[in-house]
């Protein structure tokens, strides 16, 4: 079974984000770049499915600059089989990203596309759902458990108020939530093997997708800062303040 895992390069979650004063974005000089944590979970899930079924191929995909190869190599080192890098330096909105992935899906014909529910820089949480609609496929977002029996897939989803289970026939799109799995570290032999695995670069214009952005970010500003608070000396003082000063208890 072929599984396609689109992934995104994002700043490491531990990075202190600094907003540029001219409103054009974030400072990148101190940024360590990593695979979006939710996409890492997607790679891990794809590998586990392949291992369970004892057959299949895990193909990684990213849309970005040439140096995003690094993140693809990390995924290959985890155990994915090959990778595709759609090279683009244009700003792309989520609809354009979904359309580009759809082109690759049409060519590769995977049975399953698994990706992170959201990129931790953009926080849009849209691409997986948009891709599913473009392909006319079922979607299961915020997956915390995935079961595949033949052509049938059952997914437990983390929703408000509890866990919802949905089912459908493949092919489908699944987006990952935090508790789906814990991604493995790339082993040293894995890192060595990754160097020889296929990584193809494809210019985005060759795909014939309309990339005109319909959503534009005009400016990025820092949020207003909270006023500094104070430390209290005891529980008694805290409760008194909450009762008398803040009038909340």
């Amino acid at each position: 079974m072929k599984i396609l895992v689109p992934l995104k390069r994002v700043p490491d979650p531990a990075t202190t984000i600094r907003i540029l004063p001219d409103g054009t974005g974030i400072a990148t000089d101190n940024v360590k770049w990593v695979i979006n944590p939710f996409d890492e979970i997607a790679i891990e899930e794809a590998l586990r499915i392949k291992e369970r079924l004892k057959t299949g191929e895990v193909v990684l995909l990213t849309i970005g600059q040439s140096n995003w190869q690094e993140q693809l190599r990390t995924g290959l080192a985890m155990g994915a089989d090959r990778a595709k890098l759609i090279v683009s330096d244009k700003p792309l909105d989520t609809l354009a990203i979904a359309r580009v992935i759809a082109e690759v899906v049409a060519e590769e014909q995977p049975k399953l596309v698994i990706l992170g529910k959201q990129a931790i820089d953009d926080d849009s949480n849209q691409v997986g759902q948009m891709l599913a609609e473009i392909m006319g496929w079922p979607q299961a977002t915020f997956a915390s458990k995935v079961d595949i029996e033949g052509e049938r897939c059952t997914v437990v989803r983390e929703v408000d108020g509890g866990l919802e289970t949905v089912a459908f026939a493949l092919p489908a799109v699944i987006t990952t939530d935090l508790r789906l799995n814990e991604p493995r570290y790339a082993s040293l032999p894995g890192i060595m093997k990754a160097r020889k695995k296929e990584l193809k670069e494809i210019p985005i214009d060759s795909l014939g997708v309309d990339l005109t952005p319909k959503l534009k970010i005009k400016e990025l500003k820092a949020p207003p800062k909270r006023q500094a608070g104070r430390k209290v000396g005891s529980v008694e003082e805290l409760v008194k303040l909450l009762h008398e000063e803040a009038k909340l208890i």
Partner: protein
Amino acid sequence: MGDVLVFAEHQHEHFPKSTLVAINAGLEMARKRGAQCVVAVLGEKVEALAQTAAKYGAAKVIALEHPGLKNYLADAHAQALANLVKSIGAEYVMATATARGKDLMPRLAARLEAPMASDIITINDDGTVIRPMYAGNGMALVEMDGPVKVITVRSTAFDAAPEASSPSPVEKQAANLDQGSLKMEFVNFNEIKSDRPQLTEAHIVISGGRGLKSGENFKTVLEPLVDVVGAAMGASRAAVDAGFVPNDLQVGQTGKVVAPDLYIAVGISGAIQHLAGMKDSKVIVAINKDEDAPIFSVADYGLVADLFKAVPEMAEEVRKLKQS
């Protein structure tokens, strides 16, 4: 100028507060764009529910009915809603960024070939919106082009719509739905029932972190304080990952965003991703034994103490206060 269509989510024959938030945001967008706000209630038999939605000042409420809409499923709902958008010529389609809103609206947007802005906190007069990025460390001013624009709103960024002086007209419509094209099956919903206030609606939230060390401690140490205060209970991602509490309690960038009047963080260090989910709370209290914990940088009142002593003490102090 096209109308604003609001998707009114419902569960158990009831609209959660988040739906009233969506209606209010829809009314605001309509006001600012010189348009009308129409509310859509989808389901198998939803006329009664639509009458309830009619209390909040929309120009019209549409009860969009079809057996295929009985349980929420993304493909059926996106199809029915998209057909409604086209038939009424709506320009903005809005919902709250709940789990359902997040699941549905991007699919709807793609079906309409429309751009979508997620989790917005501000609607500007010109129709541009502001939304958080980078775990709330950046606020983006976003402009969307096209005949249709899809928006989800952050549930804490707008008030719930107040009841209006007179009810909106309600119109029942059969949804345009091609059941043969639908591929998803609802299996079940394992609901976590609680007598406590809902995390996203409560005035006071008390959250526990990894510092509580076990699920048992959540029950014996934190819950007595939660209950004497009458709060909702939340948790950090670390506590949920460790299995101390169910996922439904997670507050944070990728969990629930809350903005209660009072947020008490117990044994939570205050990682950026947690702050993203609660830093708009009116008053923040932190109890942590590490005086350098980042949570103290956002706390209005900080108590450096061992939570296993401080929390029971606080529960007792509050109990005394309530009895006096």
